[in-house]
């Protein structure tokens, strides 16, 4: 009993993550974004199933006699020229857009973190050469190569993950490298060296976990960039193939018919922009919460 009372009175420390969480909670815009994102994920994942179960049609079901119809109680977002329900298609397209956003960001994170950590930890000449390569790649109009890849090797979703992931890792590598360089000289890393741990173990077990804060922030800001790139490619006709769809592909369809059927442009655009807003606000909020020193840009 005595001991418990003692502990209750003791100053309880807050960890970095608890601190960050408190700061984030104070940021109303960021919290709103969290809820919007949860809503988007929930509806895109479960929405098509629910509609299929209750209304009995899927994103590819055509109803040609109906044709393109304006939003109505049956079809909240209206239908396209083939009579496909636009709400279902928007939700289903959202699945693809989010999936590409997450997977391609994950690919870029793995590449960027590994590359940056190795360059920063080894340092010296290796570091110089590795970062020079990043500088050169930075200066290249990479999207051009993604376009060529997608055109020539088919519109394959796995290729899309890889191609986008391959483009977006550069900034991550730079951020992680600068973090690692400042960590490298810290005592606890010296301690692991004294213990005789092999290099890869020091890098992957002791250095990388300590770069997590900035990495999380940058990942949150990369997801919208990746989703934009996917939408850009889909808009050019290089994304996923029909009857599958993504927000970019739906927007492209909508642009072609915007004069007659403006809802076909409006709803997918709103879905994409709304999600991008939420992700960017959350990213900004996380940056303020996790790294109060960093400036806004």
């Amino acid at each position, binding site marked *: 009993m005595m001991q418990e009372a003692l502990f209750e009175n003791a100053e309880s420390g807050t960890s970095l993550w608890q601190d960050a969480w408190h700061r984030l909670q104070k940021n109303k815009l960021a919290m709103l974004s969290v809820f919007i994102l949860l809503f988007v994920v929930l509806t895109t994942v479960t929405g098509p199933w629910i509609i299929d179960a209750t209304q009995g049609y899927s994103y590819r079901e055509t109803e040609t006699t109906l044709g393109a119809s304006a939003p109505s109680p049956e079809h909240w977002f209206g239908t396209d020229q083939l009579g496909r329900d636009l709400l279902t298609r928007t939700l289903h397209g959202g699945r693809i857009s989010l999936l590409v956003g997450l997977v391609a960001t994950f690919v870029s994170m793995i590449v960027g973190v590994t590359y940056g950590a190795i360059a920063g930890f080894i340092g010296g000449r290796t570091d110089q050469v590795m970062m020079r390569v990043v500088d*050169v790649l*930075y*200066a*290249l*109009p990479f*999207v*051009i*190569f993604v*376009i*060529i*890849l997608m*055109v*020539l*090797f088919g519109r394959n979703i796995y290729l899309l993950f890889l191609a986008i992931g391959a483009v977006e890792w550069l900034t991550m590598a730079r951020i992680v490298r600068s973090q690692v360089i400042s960590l490298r000289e810290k005592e606890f890393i010296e301690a692991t060296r004294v213990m005789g741990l092999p290099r890869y173990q020091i890098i992957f077990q002791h250095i990388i976990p300590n770069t997590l804060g900035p990495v999380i922030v940058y990942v949150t800001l990369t997801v*919208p960039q990746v989703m*934009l790139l996917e*939408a*850009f490619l889909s*808009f*050019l*006709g290089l994304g996923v193939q029909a009857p599958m769809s993504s927000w*970019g592909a739906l*927007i*492209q369809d*909508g*642009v072609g018919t*915007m*004069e007659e059927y*403006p809802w076909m*442009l409006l709803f997918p*655009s709103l879905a*994409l*922009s709304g999600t*991008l*807003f939420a992700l*960017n*606000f959350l990213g900004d909020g996380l940056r303020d919460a996790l790294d109060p020193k960093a*400036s*806004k*840009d």
Partner: protein
Amino acid sequence: MIRFILKRIATFIPVLLAIITITFFMVRIAPGGPFDEERKVPEETLRQLQKAYNLDAPLYRQYLDYLGGVVTGDLGPSFKKPSRTVSEWIVLKLPVSLELGCYALLIALCIGLPAGILAATRPNTMQDYVPMSFAMGGICIPNFVLGPLLVLVFSLWLGWLPVTGWNTPAEKILPSFTLGAVYAAYIARLTRGGMLEVMGQDYIRTARAKGLSETAVVLRHGLRGGLLPVIAYLGPATAGLLTGSFVIEKIFLIPGLGREFVDAAFNRDYTMIMGTVLVLAALVLVLNLVADILQALLDPRVRMSMK
């Protein structure tokens, strides 16, 4: 400084060589060729075509021939648009894309800089929140959404501006604005960030203490330092302007190099793909260098690091 520029130009050669090599082999390794038509082409015609386009030579030979051509400025004949050579097509189309890019950048600077300065002079007031909200909008609304929406409102509903084209000044307003909007947003955010950092420094206090007007403090002393992040951003921005022009040229039916490249990629027009990629990449490299030189001219710290 001169040595720095020359050194940088020297690095262009291996980079461009790498780009040519990657593009060349990527295009050749890919399944399918430029003469895969729905209608089967007779064997004899196909052989004639391949001979005419030097496709029957061994791959390494074709590669060397192409490199030889590039050095002399000959990018080969176009497979799909044989009325002109690739070089001639590029000379024809490039100025249009450059013009579009220049207008877009100009618009971005004219909107982004004042917005950023305005926001930074009164941080965390309405004067800050309103332009910064617009900036967030500019970042989150992709140009291929913004463009069609603007067309819908200003051309189709209000009838003020033409829908597509690139001849009259009126036709150039919407595409330039659409392409520039994202950069205006980024420039506004960068200007605000840069200005905020500078405005807290001692030399600004000195300027104020000398009794300068607030306008003079902000524009003469603050802006010089606050602009640096914007200048540093101009290099990457030019690459984005070029790729952004792919969709803008498509939406507004502008006969520029971006559309030429996308069409060439879709048509598997080998020489046209390689030619446009080469020119676009060279352009990005040169513009990046220009941005770096500008940065050095404005920031003595950067100049020192170049020595």
